[in-house]
Structure formats: structure tokens, C-alpha cells
């Protein structure tokens, strides 16, 4: 079998047979404890500064952020953003209970359907799982309530994110996923797909010069709900 041939060739190079049980146990221990390496100091700051760092990094990467005081203001923030961008008030919404429970009826001009995205959708409104301050990155794990297509098909993606879900480093987001999610197929924590998204789609393939809006969204807008008193800006 090819598998055995490849493994045998590797072991020949390493000048040993299959690993003895004690060494396997050591490596399995490393997998189970998945030790962290160095985490850059830039995100090791008090909560208000972490949020500020997240916003600064999103904007550096050509994304935008609107900060609102409470979830009830999301429909208005969506309507305002679409109007400001001169976009039709129509979008596909992630079929997420938290998003569906928002007071959309207060903005009757907004038309939406809760489903996966299609090629004809110009705008998507996605649910953000975590924000990573270190580089202004969103973590978007797939599940029935957070379809992957909402991250890639529409020209404009709006992500609703709680400030309490903004953390410093990627490692903290992985640990949250490990803690909170059980996969129905593997029994582990990884969903089918996890996207780490940093700003809108771009390409520098033409003369190494950056242009926004390659195949994914041209605009990435984050509506940040200030649900974390400890993370509010220091007055």
C-alpha cells in the first residue's frame, strides 16, 4: 500500500521504526494539551484598549466599524450603512436566533431572507463569533446558523459582533471554540469550516498593486455591540 510505503520511507530517513509507545504517548500528550507558543505583546492590554486595537486594525485593513450601545440598534445601523453606501435595503441574513430576534420590524423598509447566500445577493448580514484584536480579524465558524456562503458571495458583508466576543489573540478564540462547541460528527470541536477574515477581499496580482474587491466582498462592515461594560472606552 502506498501509505505504508510513504511511512516506511519516512522512517528510513529518520533511522527508526514506528515510534515506541512511550514516545507516542508523549506526542499524544502534546496534541491533547496543544501548548501555546509566544503571543505577541500588542494584544495583552486592558479591555478598552483591546477593543480600540481591534477597531484600528479592521480599519487599517480597509474594513469599517460602527459601534452601537445595544443589540436593538442593529436594524437601524444596518439601514444607515446601506443608505450611506447607496445600496438597496435588501440582504440575506444568517439564520441565527440572536440575529432573527432583533427588532427588524422597526425598520420596515429593510427586506431580508434568512438562509444561505446565493450569487444574486448583494448584501449579507452575518453573525460574528469572535473578533481578534491582534490583527482585526473575525472568526466565523460554520454551522447551520452561520453559513459560509454569507462570507464570500455578496459584494457587501456586514458582520454583527458583540464587544464581549472581542479577544486579544487567535489562541483565545481557538480555546473558546474548544470550550463551547461539540461537533455532531467528530465529537471534537472543529466545525466543517472556520474562516478567519481580515478586511475585504483584495488582489495585488496586477503589477503588485493592491485593489479591493477580488472574488469576495468589496466591503466589510462590522457592527459592534457594546455589551461588555469592562470594554467601554475610558471616559
Amino acid at each position: 500500500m502506498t501509505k505504508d510505503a510513504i511511512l516506511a520511507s519516512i522512517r528510513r530517513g529518520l533511522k527508526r521504526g514506528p515510534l515506541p509507545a512511550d514516545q507516542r504517548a508523549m506526542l499524544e500528550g502534546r496534541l491533547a494539551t496543544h501548548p501555546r507558543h509566544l503571543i505577541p505583546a500588542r494584544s495583552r492590554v486592558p479591555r478598552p484598549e483591546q477593543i480600540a486595537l481591534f477597531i484600528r486594525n479592521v480599519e487599517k485593513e480597509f474594513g469599517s466599524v460602527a459601534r452601537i450601545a445595544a443589540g436593538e440598534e442593529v436594524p437601524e445601523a444596518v439601514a444607515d450603512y446601506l443608505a450611506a453606501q447607496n445600496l438597496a435595503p435588501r440582504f440575506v441574513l444568517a439564520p441565527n436566533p440572536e440575529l432573527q430576534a432583533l427588532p427588524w420590524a422597526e425598520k420596515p423598509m429593510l427586506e431580508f431572507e434568512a438562509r444561505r447566500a446565493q450569487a444574486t445577493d448583494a448584501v449579507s448580514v452575518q453573525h460574528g463569533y469572535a473578533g481578534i484584536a491582534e490583527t482585526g480579524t473575525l472568526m466565523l465558524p460554520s454551522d447551520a446558523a452561520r453559513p459560509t456562503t454569507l462570507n464570500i458571495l455578496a459584494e457587501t458583508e456586514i458582520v454583527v459582533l458583540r464587544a464581549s466576543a472581542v479577544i486579544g489573540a487567535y489562541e483565545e478564540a481557538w480555546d473558546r471554540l474548544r470550550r463551547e462547541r461539540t461537533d455532531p460528527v467528530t465529537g471534537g470541536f472543529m466545525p466543517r469550516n472556520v474562516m478567519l477574515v481580515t478586511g475585504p477581499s483584495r488582489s495585488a496580482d496586477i503589477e503588485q498593486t493592491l485593489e479591493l474587491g477580488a472574488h469576495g466582498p468589496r466591503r466589510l462592515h462590522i457592527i459592534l455591540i457594546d455589551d461588555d461594560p469592562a470594554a467601554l472606552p475610558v471616559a
Partner: protein
Amino acid sequence: MVQITSPAFKQNAARALGDAGLQKALGKAKGAFLQRRADAVSRLPEFEQLRDIGRDIKNHTLANLDFYLETFAANVERAGGTVHWCSTAEEARATVLDICRKADAKTVTKGKSMISEEIAINDHLEAHGITPVETDLGEYIIQLRHEHPSHIIAPAFHLNREDWEADFRRMHTDLDPNRVFNERRDILAEARTKLRSRFLAADVGITGANFLIAETGSSVIVTNEGNGDLTQTLPRVHIALASIEKVVPTLEDATSLLRLLARSATGQDFSVYTTFSTGVRRPGDLDGPEEYHVVLIDNGRSNMIGSEFQEMLRCIRCAACMNHCPVYGVTGGHAYGWVYPGPMGSVLTPSLVGIDKAALLPNASTFCGKCESVCPVKIPLPNLMRHWREREFERHLTPRAVRRNLGLWAWFAKRPGMYRLATRAAMGTLSLLARGKGVFRSLPLAGGWTEGRDLPAPEPGGTFMARYAKMQREGR
């Protein structure tokens, strides 16, 4: 396999030097890469420490590669995916074709993947009636032009804007021939529109993998355009092509390497899309592929383990070495004659295709050491190229005239007194001949060498050894 023209490196390089379009493209692009990387590194004070960590993670993985590959495969299967182990490019091609046929595929979209170039999957699919469509913007135009990438992360590095416009007019004949491309953005928009329907129609999506994660059985891709995500999300079948050294133990290990990758490659703090794919669509999911295959390819790499070239397997394909290479900077990537150009290619290509075909590549280096100094996983590239030169010499692949002169040099080098005497005489003569001009544009008996380079004339004040001895005497 891609046609190997590495034995013609000298002719390829000479042609590249005379190609005005190529020189224009290289001149424009080079500085941008260097500046962006330098800026990104200066924004992260821990970058140097991370390089050591990256090296150590890769070394640990390679020392236990059998264990981590088996763990990875078991976890892919737990998530409903299939792993196909392939020793050779032929096996990998047959495997991919078989999956596509079973899926009754007409068209296949592709994310950017260098291993797919290495196994030449596009030609193989086409020969069997399946249309592969490259979706990365750079790869897309390369496919339109029937070329190969000239750079591992910027495939169209050798092209100018005029080339893009001309090729789009030539190939997109359904569009108004008099349309105007005012901005680069207009070129991008046209590609976006053209490829949209391809993404939606594809039956199979093929991507590469920047990393495989043993802990979770995930394949990871890193892109800026989002084409890789459309490729692996929309079709019913996703195939990830990956060579065996892409595996790392955990998400934490991958995360540390990701902190190095984008900064070293494009000078971004993080790429736009870093995506972890694990198995098939879960019950209740509204999108994602129903089949997930990982084609795990050896193609010569397991033979590098335990050899003096094992360190090359740490490579994370960032392209910093070629971006900083003075040779790549003037020849471009095609001159190297196979899939992987620049310093990393000069080490890897002989390992994968044989030193007999690639002997000139490890010689296409000034050993300035810049590649090693920017490598995010600290691969000693000049040293590895030197190992290849030794092997070339041992196998008598080095031309006779070079061997004779090396023998002559060695005779002197082993006799320090004679060596100093000879160098003093040579320097004196050269100084005399230079008459203060600073450089030689041409030299008798070395016309081939000076055709493409100038030789700096020796500075006055004697040889290094003479000056060093003088400084010692003077107590400086």
C-alpha cells in the same frame, strides 16, 4: 510533468535579461515586496523570536512526521473525509482524475496551488475531457496565456498591465472590443464577472493547502481574493492537494506559523482569508461540500528526510527568499526552468527532479545570504545550495574547465603562503590595469563572465590579509 528547462538556465537567464517587458515588471514589483515585508516586521517586535519558534515547530514535526501524518489522516476520516496517499505525481494525477470522474465532473475550479503545478494536474484533466479553471487572478491570466507561474505567490509577477489588457481583449471575445480599462480595478472587475459563473457551475473544487493540522484533520488555505473559499465551498466535491511536509501538530502550531507567513510573503499582518476545512458538510449545514478529499503527495520528499536537505522541508512557501534574491530580481522565475524558482527552488528542484537536470540552479546564487536572513523558518539556503554544488562536483557534473580551475585554486588555497603571494600579484596587476576606474567592464579570458557583470577593481592598500596584518601591528 511540467517541461523542465533548468538545464538551459544560462540561456534562459540571458533571454530574461534582454526582455524589456520582463525587466520593467521586475523593476516595478521588487521594491514593493521588500518595503512591505520590512514594515510588517518592524510592527511586530517579537518577529525574530517567532522565527525560532517556527523553525522548532517544523523540526519537531519532521522528526515525528509518520506519527503526525497518521494522526491527521485518522482525524480527516473521523470528519467524513478521505485521505489518498500518493507516492508519485502519476499516482496523484490518477487519484484526482478518478475522484472527478466519479463526481461526473465537467468543470473543476481551482484555487492557487503550487503542488498542482508540480503534478501538472491541469493538463491531465484536460486530456481526459475535464476543464480546469484557475480562479486566482494571477493564475487565471497565466492559464489564458498557457504559461506557468513565475513566482510562487504572485504567479503573474512577470506581466505588465498592458499584457493583462491585451490578453483580456483577446480571450473575452463576448465583451465589447472597444471597452476601456481606465484603472487596474476595471481589469479586476472583468475577471470577477467572468469567473463568477465558473464558480457556480463547477462540479469539483481543487485547492492546495498551506498547512494540514494533525489535531483536527483540517486543511488550511490562505488567500486574499476569496477565490479559494468559493472554490472549496460551492462545488459538491472539495479536493485538497498537499505534500506530506505541510502537516503541523496543533492549531497553536499553525497559528504561530501563520504569524510569520503573511508578513514574510506579502508584508500583510495577516492575509484576508485564512480558512480551516475539516471534513464534509455537517447535518443541518446549509452549504459546504458533501465530499472532502485530501490527496497527500510525497513525490520525492520522504527521501529528503535524514539527508542534508531535510531542512528544506520546513519551507512554508512565503517567497521571501526569491523576493530578496538579486539573481531572481533580474532573471524572474521562468529562467529557473521548473515549478519552484529562486533560492528555495534552487534547493528543492534538484531534490525533486534530480541534480543532473538542475545542477545549474544551486550555482545561480551569489551566496549573499539575504535569503537565509529573511527566511521565516530559518532554512540555511546558501548552505544547502553549497551541498548541491558539492554533490554536483562529486558526480562529475561540473564542466571540465571549471573543475580544472577549481583544482588550481585548491592547490593554492591549501598553501597559504603561495596563496597570499598569488593574490598579491593578481591584485597588483588588476590595480595597475584598472588605473583608478573602479570597475572592469570586460576582462581578457573572462568575456563570458563580464558580459553580464562588472568586476570591481581592487581598492588601493593591498590585500585583506596585508591590511589586517598592518592593523594588528599598529594595535588598532
